[in-house]
């Protein structure tokens, strides 16, 4: 099974909000220099799922990213985990959030990679949290699409998948090729593999320009001009936390129960 996994390089979502500011135009989050960039967490689940399918059924896993050259680091995370190939589509200063633009470009790149059976994405990227690009890739390539998948089983030329519901899950069957977005319930991403680390040190990851994949940059930006970011801000959260203490855990517990009782919360 030939699998393409789309990954995004994002500022570490675990970094606290105090490490971020918004640029003067109110358009971009600016992380402090200490904040590292990582593979968006749900995309790591997608890499892991791809690798597990490859291990069970053969084929190969290609990790694909759109972004500046620094996104090569996200792809190397994928190859260290065990992905066979990686491709970066270099896109600088593309407007964000514009999922239609991203989906258009990634679909063109996937078409150029070719020979795919399965395209995996995370359910949403940790920066804009929109959850749209997977769907957009499917629409662009006229493929079926299933979102928020928590389990994948293979059938002959089809997949049997589970998607989360509010009280459990639904089972669906879908023909290949297909685009799936995955949720963290599906697996625990592996760290790295020795073979992956060794291959990555010598691997030359191809960098494609938009022109290389037949994308007109102006047209790509234009197709994403459907909504416009007016303003981005970090809201101030003001909660006065009253620390309830005591000499012993029992005293602290009693104090807490007492304040909650006096507030008539319990």
């Amino acid at each position, binding site marked *: 099974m030939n699998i393409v996994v789309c990954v995004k390089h994002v500022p570490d979502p675990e970094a*606290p909000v105090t490490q971020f500011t918004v640029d003067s135009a109110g358009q971009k989050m600016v992380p402090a220099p200490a904040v590292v960039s990582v593979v968006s967490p749900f995309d790591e689940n997608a890499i892991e799922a791809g690798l597990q399918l490859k291990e069970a059924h053969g084929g190969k896993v290609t990790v694909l990213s759109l972004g500046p050259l620094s996104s090569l680091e996200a792809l190397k995370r994928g190859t260290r985990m065990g992905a066979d190939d990686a491709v970066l589509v270099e896109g600088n200063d593309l407007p964000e959030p514009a999922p239609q633009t991203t989906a258009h470009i990634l679909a063109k790149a996937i078409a150029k990679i070719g020979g795919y059976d399965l395209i995996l994405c995370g359910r949403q990227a940790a920066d804009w*949290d929109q959850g749209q690009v997977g769907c957009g890739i499917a629409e662009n390539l006229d493929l*079926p699409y299933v979102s928020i998948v*928590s389990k994948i089983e293979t059938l002959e030329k089809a997949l049997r998948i589970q998607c989360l519901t509010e009280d459990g899950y*639904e089972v669906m*069957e879908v023909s290949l090729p297909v685009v799936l977005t995955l949720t963290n319930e599906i697996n625990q991403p592996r760290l790295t593999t020795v073979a992956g680390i060794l291959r990555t040190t010598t691997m030359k990851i191809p960098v494609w320009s938009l022109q290389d994949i037949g994308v007109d940059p102006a047209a790509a930006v234009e197709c994403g001009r459907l909504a416009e970011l007016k303003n981005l801000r*970090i809201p101030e959260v003001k*909660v006065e936390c009253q620390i309830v203490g005591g000499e012993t855990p029992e005293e602290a517990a009693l104090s807490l129960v007492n304040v909650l009782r006096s507030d008539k919360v319990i």
Partner: protein
Amino acid sequence: MQNSREVIIFAELFDGRLHSGVPELCSLARGLADQLSGVASAILIGTDVKGLASELISYGMDKVYAADDARLHNYQPEAYTAVIEQVCRSENPEVLLFGQTLRGRDLGPRLAFRLKTGIATDCVEFTIDSVSKKLVVTRPAYGAKALATLTFLSQPAVATLRSKAVSPAEKNEARTGQTIPIEVNIDFAKLRIKYIARVKQESEGPKLEDAKVIVSGGRGLGQAENFKLLEELAKILGGVVGASRGAVDNGWLPSTRQVGLTGTIVSPRLYFAIGISGATQHMAGCASSQYIVAINKDPEAPIFRRAHYGVVADYKPVVAAMIQCCTQ
């Protein structure tokens, strides 16, 4: 193009009834339609939906487009997309709204891409720009660290509404409206996604989103076993147990118990965050709780900047003592 000035919601069903978030969507759609001097409508897809159409009208809808078809009883994304697309192409609404539920997260982008229009998910504020008459929305970004305000340059403006962001509509049985049957012209044999089954995993008791008291645990609990203590406290307080994504990732509780940006949005009277650091993506799911109580041994944990009451201690003896106090 003549603006139709129509706001359409997708009225999601859950177990054959309107999803609990639908009255919120009705209230939002009514308000936006009034700002546009337009009409508010709902799309209803399923079987035996007649009674539900009247219910939607009593919640403030002027029109209900009802696709009542046994073949649509279970959720089939392609078929549902086709029905909603059909209504939108014929009615050309100004705004198309979904709940930020798993269904809404699935259908919203499908419709936006199909109709080649813009979409904003998980929106918490909605208004109509007084000059352009376009929808303006505010939504969290960067794991709820930031708030983004967007305006639409395309029609319909597609958006999903975060649960509990607006007050639900009140029922008024005296209201009248129109139910418009939708003819379903779908070749079901050609659908590439086939529904097989639905499996319930949820335990008995109140649902997370309806609970008045939630006792949530995070990575700090260390192991699944330790949730038993939280369950005991929840039981005594008449509440239920929740979890952070970290706890769910570790397999300690099922994902149906996850509170946060990608889990359930809750606003109970009392929310306990135990062994939870307080990442913004978690707080996005519980910040509107009336009281947040944090128990964490790390005094620097961000949760103490979001909680009303905090105990800096190992949670185990504190929770055990609370259980003692509350049973006496």
